[in-house]
């Protein structure tokens, strides 16, 4: 079942067109990744879906409802949680307060979910009375993910969870992301600079360039593409010289 589908989204920053017609589909239970260079429009896409920005054109269909143009809090109520780039935890609130804020829009009890979050992130339970500002970067990322989970979302959007984390911590975070997906069935839309780990974790991917989708498909297909290998996975071409400065032309196939 398709949880989220965007059609021909166009989003502007003033006169600058950041999304030039983006159509993507996210199915129930999937992890879908959006790859792209800096400034490609990945975060803009997330913000547009979350209601932080309004699209100029295009539709966003979420579980059969049109959500384009809704206020962010309404989008959260509909069941989309955004784990923003750079964590954005509330530094002066305790960890538990931060987590409870994640469930703010819910009317039912969130006690089970708190236990669930603590189960996946034991370190948060250990330090639940401390102010979130004292956590390390990796722990803050865990907190941000946990906070997102507290809304019990139908779709979780993760914007660069690996930002500023060591490779080892990145692996740990992605391990948990994969587990959450497999064990809890959380559908995820994942924006990531680290294409290696994103392609290893996700089921499906889109490549965004200059606000347009240039390539789409299963992660196996993407991983096999020469362009992805050279431009996102950093494979160095096998030349006779030890270094290679020039880039081949992208063809996206």
């Amino acid at each position, binding site marked *: 079942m398709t949880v989220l589908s965007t059609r021909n989204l166009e989003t502007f920053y003033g006169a600058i067109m950041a999304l030039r*017609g983006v159509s993507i589909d996210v199915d129930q239970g999937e992890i879908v990744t959006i790859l792209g260079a800096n400034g490609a429009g990945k975060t803009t896409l997330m913000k547009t879906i979350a209601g932080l920005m309004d699209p100029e054109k295009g539709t966003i269909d979420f579980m059969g409802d049109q959500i384009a143009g809704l206020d962010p809090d309404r989008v959260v109520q509909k069941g989309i949680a955004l784990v923003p780039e750079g964590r954005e935890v509330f530094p002066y609130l305790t960890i538990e307060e931060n987590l409870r804020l994640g469930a703010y829009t819910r009317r039912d009890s969130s006690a089970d979910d708190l236990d669930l979050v603590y189960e996946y992130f034991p370190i948060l339970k250990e330090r639940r009375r401390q102010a979130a500002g004292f956590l390390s970067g990796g722990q803050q990322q865990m907190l941000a993910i946990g906070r997102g989970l507290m809304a019990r979302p139908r779709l979780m959007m993760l914007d660069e969870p690996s930002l500023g984390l060591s490779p080892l911590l990145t692996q740990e975070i992605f391990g948990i992301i994969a587990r959450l997906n497999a064990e809890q069935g959380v559908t995820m839309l994942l924006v990531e600079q680290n294409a290696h780990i994103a392609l290893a974790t996700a089921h499906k991917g889109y490549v965004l360039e200059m606000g347009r989708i240039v390539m*789409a498909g299963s992660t196996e297909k993407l991983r096999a593409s020469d362009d992805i290998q050279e431009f996102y996975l950093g494979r160095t071409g096998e030349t006779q010289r030890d270094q290679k400065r020039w880039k081949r032309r992208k063809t996206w196939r």
Partner: protein
Amino acid sequence: MEMSRVDTSQYLSFDGHETITSLWADRCARYGDRVAHREKELGIWQAYSWRDYYDCARKIGRALMALGVKKGEPVLILAEDRREWLYIDLASASIGAIPAGVYTTDSAAQLAYLANDSGARVLFVENDEQLDKYLEARDRMEGIQKVVVMEREGLASFSDPKVMFLDELYAMGETEETREPGLFEEAIKAVRPEDPRMLIYTSGTTGPPKGAMITHRNMIFQMRSGSECLEFLESDNLLCFLPLCHVLERIVSVEAPIANGCIVNFAESPETVFDNLQEVSPDSFSGVPRIWEKIYSRVMILRSEAGPIGARAFDWALAVGHRYAQAENPGAGLRLAHAVADFTVLANLRRMLGLANARRVTSGAAPISPDLIHWFGALGVPLIEGYGMTETAGIATVNTVEDNRIGTVGTAIPGVEMRIDETGELLIGGPCVFGGYWNKPEKTAETMTEDGWLRTGDVGRIGNDGALTITGRLKDIIITAGGKNITPAEIESKLKFSPYVSDAVVIGDRRKYLTCLIMIDQENVEKFAQDRQIPFSDFASLTRAPEVRDLIGGVVAEANRQFAQVEQIKDFRLIDILLTAEDEELTPTMKLKRNFVNQRHAALIDEMY
């Protein structure tokens, strides 16, 4: 009456010079510090003089002599258009060697083929990217003794006994010249009119590429006859952007500026041509149909974005421009309307496109739609079509701005003779006929009739006014299962007039009916889909969108209406991969190659039958 080929021993000279190289040396001496070339460096236009042209070429020439390059020996140049390309070109020709260009989009294997076929010992490459092609296939081109790299970037720590840099070559040439001056000038004198001036590799749509030898005499003839119908002035600014490996760009950006003293401006890259065109605003401009189609679709997109008032104003101005261009003697009312239309819309448009100064723009190398020529005429841009091929050393027939017979490719330039043989094939004779294929006498023999006419492989007719109309390629003629002969080029050019169609290939040889493979124009179709909220993600999904199929279906239906029943296209498919110049299916000028397309997309074709 049996005609025979024009006597080739007839004396031909331009301004008293029988070879391009002696003409060039004379011009360099005459113009001295005047600007010959302009090229952008770090975003700023820099000027280079005729003295630079000569001095740099002399250094290269002397160094090549020191490297042992002999008279009659090909020298390969693999680079984008830039002034050094011309320096190497003239340096090689001056010492009697034969410069041959290699397309920058060619693969390592293709480079190896050209190296072996030409037997060249020296290869010039632009940068590390092109050098890698040599390094990749060096064991397959052992004949190459020296590779000269123009740019050092990215190669600081690189060294190889066979590879040197252009600045080292300059230094070597300078030392040679101080040691024993005057050898370069002597070499220029030794060049004979019948010597090859250049080797042009044909794109090879059938079989491997062949090197066509163009002699000095061929080019001197082009200068003489060309100057009678195509005016170049000393004050002209030109823009060089098509590959210099192609005979058309060589004539327009190398030979004609030498003969007429024009300034050549080099486009930064193939991607920036339209910006550079605007900056340079050349006095005359030669393009291939694809360029004109692109300009047309850019303007049409601008129109659609201009809002209802802007679009109405544009349509009105263009209609007035059209009537004005058609009228023999425009009346006072039309003249006034045209003045207003020109002032408010057309002149601005021309300035924006960079065609404001253009006295004449030409199209060649492939058929162009007559509608497009009319359209440019209405805009006030005098677009004329010419005809020629590598084997005619460039131009064979051309229209003139004064007498532009749209739909024809014009009359033969003075000295060129044409006739149509019994199969309908166009034969050409005269001093423009090339000197044969390099090391392929059997291929040369196949191209020539027994009495010395060149078989063009094109089917055409010559009107009573002497104007030539090309209807297609002889080998492209489709004979349907019903026995009907069809020349696909006419149908294809109708299809290509749509801004949504980039190129099309009509299929139907020995089949029941005609079908077509279409390459859509990515930019315009994406815009179409986006404007109508048609969802798509990548290029393949764009070609699968039903609305896009309907759009192209409409284009096909529109084209069909202009043809008889048997010539109509019954079905079509869209090519769902975005082709680039590196792909085998495309020529460097982005035309689809019929044979490759038929092979690569056989599955799509079979679907339609």
